[in-house]
């Protein structure tokens, strides 16, 4: 009875769907988080009888017999829509309005990318993520400058007014990718580039294609609780209904096995 394994693929697909929804919901409050979405596909079709073969004298089977063998997850796509804005009044909180990632140097020297702009200062006055990883290019705030006096312009210029004159301390840059959907999420709000994403294209915020920065705001998660809950109901029912196929196929086999007394 193929129906048993066909239904099992349906249940496995929906199980992965629920796993993904659970991950999205667990990150409903994670700054800069982008929700994932599972895309499903049907599995291969088994040809019992191809179309166009002869059924009997002078007749041709117009459509044939093709049996589908279930479903499978094809991909989990990250959906890079803008998350909600949260005003924080923190001078080092940055939000990217539009496309672009902050470039971060990881402890091993490799680059990672994030949308989470909740920056802090380390002991040397450098801008770092909450995990202490360096924003690249490095922005250093001298010790004698109060963080509250910092100004970060939409184009990434970090400046401070000293003795009535604006002094530029550095420029924050953003990274864009030919295919941001191809970035690999590695946790801790970070993404790394892959062959599919292409290499990072570094540029000034506000330049063509790049988003602009907003100081004093953070980007919230783009998970919509209502949408995820609806998806969860759909996934759970889809799981349940495939389990009914298994029950029915099981009962049919039971009937068949009772044939011989």
């Amino acid at each position, binding site marked *: *009875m193929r129906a048993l394994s066909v239904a099992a693929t349906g249940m496995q697909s929906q199980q992965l769907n629920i796993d993904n929804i659970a991950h999205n919901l667990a990150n409903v409050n994670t700054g800069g988080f982008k929700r994932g979405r599972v895309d499903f*596909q049907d599995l291969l079709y088994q040809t019992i009888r191809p179309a166009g073969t002869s059924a009997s004298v002078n007749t041709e089977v*117009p459509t044939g017999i*093709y049996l589908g063998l279930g479903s499978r997850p094809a991909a989990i796509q990250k959906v890079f829509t803008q998350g909600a804005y949260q005003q924080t009044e923190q001078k080092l909180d940055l939000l990217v309005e539009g496309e672009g990632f902050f470039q971060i140097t990881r402890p091993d020297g490799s680059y990672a990318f994030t949308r989470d702009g909740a920056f802090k200062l380390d002991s040397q006055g450098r801008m770092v993520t909450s995990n202490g990883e360096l924003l690249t290019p490095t922005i250093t705030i001298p010790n004698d400058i109060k963080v509250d006096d910092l100004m970060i312009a939409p184009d990434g210029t970090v400046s401070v007014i000293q003795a009535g004159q604006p002094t530029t301390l550095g420029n924050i840059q953003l990274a864009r990718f030919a295919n941001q959907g191809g970035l690999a999420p590695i946790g801790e709000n970070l993404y790394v580039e892959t062959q599919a994403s292409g290499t990072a294209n570094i540029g000034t915020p506000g330049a063509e294609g790049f988003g602009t920065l907003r100081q004093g705001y953070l980007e919230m998660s783009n998970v919509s609780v209502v949408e995820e809950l609806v998806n969860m109901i759909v996934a759970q029912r889809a799981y349940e*209904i495939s389990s009914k196929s298994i029950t029915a196929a099981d009962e049919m086999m039971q009937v068949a096995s009772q044939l011989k007394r």
Partner: protein
Amino acid sequence: MKEVYQVLTAAMGQEMRMTQIANNLANVNTTGFKRDGSVFFDELHASLSAQASADPAADPADPVKIADRTWPSLPRTYTDFSTGPLRETGRDLDVAIAGDGFFQVQGPGGATGYTRAGALALNAEGELTTPDGRRLLDQGGQPIAVDAEGGPLRITPDGRIFAGNDEQGRLGVVRFTEPGLLIKHGEGLLLAPAGVEPEPVEAPTLRPGALEGSNVNPIEEMVRMIQAQRIYETQQKMVRTLDELTQKRIEASS
């Protein structure tokens, strides 16, 4: 005893139908999936009546002959191409076809595949692909390379792709006069058998930021499932009854 085999063939048909229903239900959440149905009809009718008319000695009133003529078939499968529900997703590279038509993609072995699942992605070369990496084709059958430098990607309702204000290419949408002749390949693809040619849709109506859901209706499938299961049960009872009749005949003659 041939009645037993007749019933058996019919029961195999119900078993296949059950698999089909399980497949429909397993794909209740698959983007752009089209449900399959089955048709049953009597199989050997045509050939045996041809034989009977060729044989003048054959008596059409002979009950055995009549029984012979209607032999149950395995079900023929067909695909129901009705449109599935459109749902908004808000994603730049999601696009649904409102109404008739298919996107063209690079299928297995260089063949062109057809799909309605418009959850698109980009590959490393910047070409538009399906989620599992098959390249989408434009009206001319060429892959669609997109340069996303110019700004966020946007798909217009007539299938043109923009990065910022630069037009990057156009999605190829085709239609078939008889989509029923297409063969399901799986992985969301349909293949056209030899001799079946698509015709381009010059002005397609697309819904950017939306996807077409599966057109499987779970309630209808549940009803079909109950039907298949009960018919199967009845068929097994018939086998048992036929068995009992044979046994009685053996007992009577001994």
